[in-house]
C-alpha cells in the first residue's frame, strides 16, 4: 500500500505558528482537498510534503521510508510558479522537464499532449508570448506526461478556462480511480466529476 504519512508536523514562519502537531496520511485512491483562508499555511504544507522545504519538526515517510529518490520518481508537484522558462517554447520546456525526471518521450507525444490541451499552433512560441492560462496549461501537461502515484497541486485551477477545468477534473478522477493519490489546494468549488473528495481544513492562527 503506497502511503505518504506525515506525523506531528509543525511549521513556523515569521514568528507565527502556521500549524503544529499536524498529522496527515495520503494513501492511494484518495483525493484530499486542502482548505483554509489565505495565509493558513496550505502552500507551506504542500511544499513540506513535496520535500522541497523542511518542517520545523515532525517526520514524513513514503512507504515507510523517509523521502528519497523513489518518492520523487512517483511525484508530480505543481506549485504557484509554473516552472517554465519564459524564453524557451512549450515543447522545449516539457522536453527538458521529461529528461530531468527520466521520462522517455517523443516529440510527437509532446505535440499530441499540447493539442489535447488546445494549444495547437502555440507549441513553438516562447512561453512568455502565451497568456497566463495557456502557460498554466503547459505546466499542467506534466500530469499526463509523467507516470506517478502522487500529485501535489497548489491552486491547479488558477487562470484556467471552464473547458480545461472540466478536463482537469476528469483527469483527477481517472488518476484517483487508478490508485493515484492527490492533495490539492483550491478556492474553486469542484464539481461532482472529480469523484469523492476528502477535505482537510487549516485554520488561520494568530
Amino acid at each position: 500500500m503506497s502511503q505518504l504519512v506525515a506525523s506531528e508536523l509543525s511549521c513556523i514562519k515569521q514568528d507565527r505558528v502556521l500549524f503544529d502537531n499536524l498529522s496527515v496520511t495520503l494513501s492511494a485512491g484518495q483525493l484530499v482537498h486542502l482548505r483554509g483562508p489565505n495565509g493558513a499555511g496550505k502552500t507551506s504544507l504542500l511544499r513540506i510534503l513535496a520535500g522541497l522545504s523542511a518542517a520545523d519538526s515532525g517526520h514524513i515517510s513514503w512507504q515507510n521510508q523517509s523521502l528519497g529518490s523513489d518518492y520523487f520518481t512517483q511525484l508530480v508537484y505543481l506549485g504557484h510558479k509554473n516552472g517554465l522558462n519564459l524564453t524557451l517554447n512549450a515543447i522545449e520546456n516539457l522536453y527538458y522537464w521529461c529528461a530531468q525526471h527520466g521520462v522517455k518521450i517523443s516529440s510527437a507525444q509532446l505535440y499530441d499532449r499540447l493539442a489535447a490541451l488546445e494549444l495547437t499552433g502555440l507549441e513553438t512560441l516562447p512561453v512568455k508570448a502565451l497568456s497566463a492560462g495557456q502557460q498554466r496549461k503547459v505546466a499542467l501537461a506534466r500530469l499526463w506526461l509523467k507516470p506517478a502515484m502522487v500529485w501535489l497541486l497548489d491552486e491547479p485551477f488558477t487562470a484556467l478556462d471552464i473547458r480545461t477545468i472540466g478536463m482537469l477534473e476528469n483527469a483527477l478522477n481517472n488518476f484517483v480511480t487508478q490508485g493515484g493519490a492527490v492533495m490539492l489546494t483550491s478556492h474553486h468549488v469542484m464539481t461532482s466529476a472529480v469523484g469523492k473528495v476528502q477535505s482537510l481544513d487549516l485554520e488561520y492562527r494568530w
Partner: protein
Amino acid sequence: MTTLFYGVFKRDLALAFRQKAELAQPLLFLLIVITLFPIAVGPGPDILQRIGPGVIWVAAILASLLGMDRLFKEDFNDGSLEQMMLSGHPLYQLVLAKITAHWLVCFIPVLLLTPLFSILLNQTLTMAVALFLSLLLGTPLLSLMAAIAMGLTVGVPKGGLLPSLLMLPVLIPLLIFATSAVESAAMGLSYTPQLAVIGAMFLVALALAPLATVYALKVSQH
C-alpha cells in the same frame, strides 16, 4: 547521468544561446576594459607589459560577476529550480551540471580571446602562455565559488552586490597567485608552483563547492 546531461546541461546551453545578447555582454565588457586601459595609463609598451596580466585578470573577474546571475536566479524565479530539485537525482550532480554549463558559456569565450588580449597588452609569448594556463585553472574556481554565492543569495530580492562580496575572500588569493605566475614567467622563472596552488584551490572547490551549493539552495527554498 544521461538524463541529467540532456535535462540540465543541454538545457542551460540551449538557453544561453537563445539569449545571445546576454551571452555577449560580459565579453564586450572585457574587451572595452582592455582597450580603455592603454588609453588611460598611456600606451608605453613597458607599462602595458607590466600591468597587462593584472588588468586581464581583474577584467575577467568583473566580467564573470556580470554573468553570475544566470546560474540560478532565473530558474529560481520561474520555478524551474524546484522542479529540478524534485527530479530525484542527487542534487550534487545537478549542481555540477549547471556549474559546468555556466563555465563553458561564461569563460570559454574569454579563454579563446586571451591570446588577442595578450597581444593588445604587449605580453611576451611565455607570459601569454602563463596567463592562459592561470585562467584555464582559475576560471572554473570562479564558477564554483559563484555557485555558492548565488545559491545563498538566490532568494534575496535585489541581492545585487552581496554575491560579489561573498566571493571576495577567494578572489584575492586567486588573483595574487595568478598574477605572480605571470610575473615569474616574465622573469623567465618557473611558474609551476603558482599554477599548482591554483590547481589545488580548484580541486578542493570542485569537491566541496557543489555540496555547499546544494545546502545553500535547500536553505533558499525554505
